[in-house]
């Protein structure tokens, strides 16, 4: 389901992109108190019976947070798992609410950009929020 142009991961390119917004993104990640109050603002979280994987904060922490923590040294498989969170689990509708005012959609968009730099994109069935099994 993924358009894979490159099979390897260019960690230095990921690091370069991460460093471009390091101060801002790290400030936002650090401001997250992991309170989970953003969950209810996501229609996908509500539509999936409260599956934590659809929580806005979960999507950010497990993708962008992980990329910063590992300084871009991630495997291709990890990036593909992130693809699920960033495209299948999020339609980037921009309705996330954070009590601390963290701009979650912006962080998800930034993380998507990093994945695109590695040739990983979202494709239509995933953006509809359905898994492959559900579509068949």
């Amino acid at each position, binding site marked *: 389901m993924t358009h894979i142009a490159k099979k390897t991961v260019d960690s230095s390119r990921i690091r370069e992109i991460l460093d471009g917004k390091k101060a*801002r993104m790290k400030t936002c990640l650090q401001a997250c108190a992991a309170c989970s109050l953003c969950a209810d603002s996501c229609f996908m979280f509500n539509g999936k019976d409260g599956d934590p994987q659809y929580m806005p904060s979960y999507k950010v922490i497990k993708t962008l947070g992980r990329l910063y923590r590992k300084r871009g040294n991630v495997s291709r498989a990890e990036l593909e798992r992130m693809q699920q969170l960033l495209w299948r689990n999020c339609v980037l509708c921009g309705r996330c609410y954070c009590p*601390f*005012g963290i701009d979650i959609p912006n962080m998800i968009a930034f993380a998507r950009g990093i994945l695109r730099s590695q040739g990983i994109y979202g494709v239509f069935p995933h953006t509809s929020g359905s898994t492959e099994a559900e579509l068949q």
Partner: protein
Amino acid sequence: MYDLLRGPVFWVSAAVCVCGLIFRTIQMFRLTRAKIIPECRLSPARNTPARQVSDEERRLDMVARFRNSVIWRHPVVVAVSAVFHVCLFAAPILLVAHNMMIAQAGWVALPSVPDWFADLMTIAVLVCAVFLLVRRIALPKVAAISSPVDYCVLLLAVMPFLTGFLAYHQLFDYKTVITLHALAGDLLLIALPFTKVGHMVFFFFSRLTMAGEFCMGRGRRTWAA
């Protein structure tokens, strides 16, 4: 050891805390810029008087807004968080024992609350902390995003209160407990600007100054890049 922790180490910690908070605030300003808000002018043809909004419509709008708010959806979490944070700040500042030490050091004597009230605030912090901890462990959506750091931050915030409570009631070995209390307080002060506890700076800056739908202030700033 205790004298060292409540003396020079405390002043260094307090200085690190104040300087760190100033640094974080300046950093937030540097990461953002003033937002240029375009002046909106309607064409003369469309510039008709606004439709009168009835009181009933206004009331319904307020009800809808409130029902969509976090306060309505999670009243217990909001109430517990509010009590936790208010007591977390008020208890150490308004405690007689702390203010006496500040006065003895030649600083201004701050207003204090009776000991029983400070004790009540300490118990409130401890009870709220237990609630937040149980919520973090038991609720799958909170557990899913919790890292060891989140537990450490909670422990860091609670330790000065737990040790203070034990010291005030003379439980366990007083000297050890009071030394731990001073150490926990100093650690919290140092950690405040540089760890997740720093969400206190981010909260006020973001919710009061950053432009956006949920801005509670003027919202005249936006991210620089």
